[in-house]
């Protein structure tokens, strides 16, 4: 149909595959190592996955040479996914914090069923 299908030859594909396999090895290896905190490990795993995804998209899916419109579609779907993640995250992370002494939404702390003292010290937010 057009040149782009021919331009990345078999060699590029093989190299891409090798890179992907190596990265997979690294991810699995990294999962045995403790990088200090759980989130550090997750971030590393996600970062490697993102590199892999970019490789697949650029070379296997030809985005590198394709009509930029297709890349725009791909990227905007990721951006909107980011929006979708970001706002609920903002909500959940800040449910307790914005106004000092404000509406405090406590997670399931044992409710004082019996008489509550008139002014309890604001309970620290309990996040599991």
């Amino acid at each position, binding site marked *: 149909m057009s040149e782009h299908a021919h331009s990345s030859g078999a060699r590029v594909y093989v190299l891409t595959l090798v890179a992907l396999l190596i990265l997979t090895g690294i991810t699995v290896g990294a999962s045995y190592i403790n990088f200090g905190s759980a989130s550090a490990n997750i971030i590393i795993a996600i970062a490697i996955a993102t590199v892999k995804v970019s490789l697949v998209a650029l070379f296997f899916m030809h985005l590198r040479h394709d009509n930029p*419109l297709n890349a725009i579609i791909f990227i*905007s*779907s990721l951006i*909107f996914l980011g*929006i*979708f993640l970001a*706002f*609920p995250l*903002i*909500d*959940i*992370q*800040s*449910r*307790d*914090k*914005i*106004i000092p002494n*404000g*509406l405090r*939404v406590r997670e399931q702390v044992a409710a004082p069923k019996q008489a509550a003292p008139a002014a309890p010290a604001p309970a620290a937010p309990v996040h599991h």
Partner: protein
Amino acid sequence: MADIVATPKSQSHGDHYDVDYLNDGSLLSWLTTVDHKKLGVMYLWSILFMFFLGGVFALLVRLELMNPGQTIMTAEQYNKAFTLHGAIMVFLVIIPSIPAALGNFALPLMLGAKDVAFPRLNLLSFWIYVTGAIIATVAMVTGGVDTGWTFYTPYSTTTDGPVALMTFAAFVLGFSSILTGVNFVATVHKLRAPGMGWFKMPLFVWGIYATAIIQVLATPVLAITLLLLIFERLFGVGVFDPKLGGDPVLFQHFFWFYSHPAVYIMILPGMAIISEVIPTMSQKVFFGYKATAFSSVAIAIVSFVVWGHHMFTSGQSQLAGAIFSFLTFLVGIPSAIKVFNWITTMYKGSISLAAPMLYALMFLILFGIGGLTGIFLGTMSVDIHLHDTYFVVAHFHYVMMGSTLIAFLAGLHFWWPKMFGRMYNERAAQIAAFFVFIGFNATFLPQFLLGSRGMPRRYYDYLPEFTFLHQVSTVGSWLLGLGFVIMAGYLFASLRKKMDAPSNPWHARTLDWQTSSPPITHNFHEIPVLKQGPYDYFKPFEPSVEGYHE
């Protein structure tokens, strides 16, 4: 694409090349047709039928609210009635109404294309729509659903009834909407007539294009939300159920991530029709074309970041609420640009007050009310009071019924001659329009007052002090119904006479009017080459299709 070669008349499609599409092929062949015009017409009839059904539920709801206490049904029946009313109107009527029915019909014609990009996909999406409608009907007759159209958890995961089935119906309908969106984006990008740059496109196309973007990007999230809900009911996974450690507010985030952009899936095509009707009926160049085109896209994008305004009281954080409130207001700006551009377009025009224009003017007023009351709701402290009261009910009927459906009616009357080749009775149309306008306002204007005075929504019973306003509203709904009965009467009547519509009754300049009424199967004898912008009413008409005559 300078190298486009016109297909000679004699090639491939010889025999049925000149037949108008309505009479091309047997009745049965309609069921498997890939012709965008036939699909548009089939969508139209299905949607009108569903609108009738949703309208019947609406009238029942209003009748129950005629008096406090039980009037004609029990609380359970009432809850099912408004749920089905809302769900039908949203998923089966208003979301497909303009894009799938009128858009399918008019979009390729306006682009000078022979069909949409993926005709078979178009057929598939129609049948998916029908399947969804059938599943929804099954859910209705096997007990009905009482969750409200919003399906909030944990009520929806614990109540009885075929909730999973109803949810599945909405899920299926979502796919129909997605496929339509995919099809339209590709069509607009790839099938424009030679000479039609982006800024030579009719504004209807811009509006549908912006809508299609939302359909593609937002609807999948509805699909997964509903799937999770079904999962939750079947397996008790607990993502949204606090008893199992889940978060019901998260469900609301999921739901509104789709359903707020969905309200712009509803209004953008409506605005798109108005952007077509006003310059045509005023014979005036569109004022602020580019601003209007961009504002459609701006609304589409901003619509993704305001969903939290439905959740100010739901227990989301204040920070999130503040961000959402602020962004909500920003949507007002592109809307303002549109409203004032429409109005200015009429300035020093040559204005005809035929039915499509009457509905367009009605739209301006009703969208004014609907949109401006949205501003009250976007204001945090005020919304805390108004949330889940009849103020909200009134707001969204002004924008959905009063704006989108009125725009749909404008479009229906506008393209009716093109679709069916017949003119309807103009006098009867004006009478119907009168009843619709009076009836609509009588129904929903009192609801603002009800709401601000504290009447909560989804109430089957109410305090005596609200009786009078509710009664006005109920009587209004009958006037509204009367308007629709008259409309059904003269539209059906027009179908029974012989074809008499000229190819261009409104003296429009877009390509859809430069083919016969009704159009031939392949839309145009030759591929049109654009000679003039869509609204160049300040200079003599130069048809883009060879051999065109009115």
